[in-house]
């Protein structure tokens, strides 16, 4: 059975679906799923549920159960990482100039003085499960970009599995989720930017893989370089030892969060974190060194 790749743009990134060529209809289902997720969770759509929550900061806003689930998982990730993953950085990103889709972002933004940063305000987000309502604190805004993409990829492969597709891979801007693998392939051959791999690819037999990097999505603010991954403690773009982290995990939701948390860390702390959770990772340092941690064969 030959493989086919279907590509489309959604959630501000390129999405591809690799699956048996006889399952074109199911690939279109995946596109529809991404369109729905983008409509609910984009902070750049004024009519999205997320934008309504952010615009009504300080007040309860009812949301769909699916949106509630993503926000709940994002807060769960924040608690599990003691705030090193922080979903409440949306307002700060806007302050730093990332106030529209990256494609529409001018290369240089005005350098206005920044407000004093108050870390860990994600702890003030209130969820009311009975009413499926969310409240963000005044002045705060959720940005679910990465984790939403990862969860959309997870949801897409779950949908394909239920639809009877025997194996598939969904790649949402570098966040990959898989279901099964092509027969006798041993897995999915995945190339990783800035990581030298024999043959140009690593084989992912199952599960998910995500890459976080400070090398992309960059702009300038008053002449000072910015990027979209913020250090939750300083409220400023991360400037650590690592510039890129790729992590494998059972789900893309986990891989995405783990990659961001490791990227924020020193090499030593990232190594301890990855091994402590039984994950596998490829790290790229600021000087260009590459480190492989965990189950590499």
């Amino acid at each position, binding site marked *: 059975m030959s493989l086919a790749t279907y590509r489309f743009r959604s959630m501000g990134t390129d999405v591809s679906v690799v699956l048996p060529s006889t399952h074109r209809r199911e690939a279109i289902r995946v596109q529809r799923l991404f369109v729905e997720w983008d409509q609910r969770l984009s902070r750049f759509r004024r009519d999205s549920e997320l934008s309504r929550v952010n615009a009504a900061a300080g007040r309860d806003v009812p949301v769909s159960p699916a949106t509630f689930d993503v926000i709940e998982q994002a807060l769960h990730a924040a608690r599990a990482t003691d705030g090193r993953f922080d979903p409440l950085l949306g307002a700060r990103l806007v302050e730093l100039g990332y106030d529209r889709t990256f494609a529409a972002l001018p290369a240089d933004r005005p350098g206005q003085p920044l407000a004093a940063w108050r870390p860990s305000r994600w702890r003030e987000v209130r969820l009311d499960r009975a009413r499926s309502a969310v409240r963000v604190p005044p002045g705060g805004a959720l940005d679910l970009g990465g984790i939403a993409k990862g969860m959309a990829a997870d949801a897409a492969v779950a949908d394909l599995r239920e639809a009877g597709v025997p194996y598939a891979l969904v790649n949402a801007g570098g966040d990959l989720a898989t279901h099964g693998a092509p027969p006798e392939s041993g897995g999915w051959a995945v190339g990783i930017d800035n990581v030298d791999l024999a043959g140009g690819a690593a084989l992912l037999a199952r599960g998910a893989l995500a890459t976080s990097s400070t090398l992309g999505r960059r702009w300038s603010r008053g002449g000072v370089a910015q990027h979209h991954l913020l250090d939750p403690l300083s409220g400023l773009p991360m400037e650590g030892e690592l510039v890129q982290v790729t992590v*494998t995990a059972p789900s893309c939701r986990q891989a995405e969060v783990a990659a961001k948390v490791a990227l924020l860390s020193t090499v030593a702390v990232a190594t301890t974190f990855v091994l402590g959770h039984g994950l596998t990772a490829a790290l790229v340092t600021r000087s260009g060194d590459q480190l492989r941690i965990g189950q590499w064969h």
Partner: protein
Amino acid sequence: MQRRRDHGAKQSRLHRLKGLAVALTAGLGMLIWGAVSGTVAVGDPAATSTPQPVTEDTTGDSTFFGAQDPAPGLSQTGQAPMTRSHGS
């Protein structure tokens, strides 16, 4: 006439005292009821403070990276990449 006015004033004071006693009894009763039933009396700061989150975290923080399946590893392959992971 004077005796009637004194009597009226005495009755009025008695009425006010009775009213105060009733109010005190009612207030005491509400406090006791509040303590027994766990309800919050009006004026208690807890009644006007920010509501606490009602989300139940049934999964527990330590389980975010946990799963039924162990995390997948990676192996070197001579195959050409089917897809790429770049930073997001």
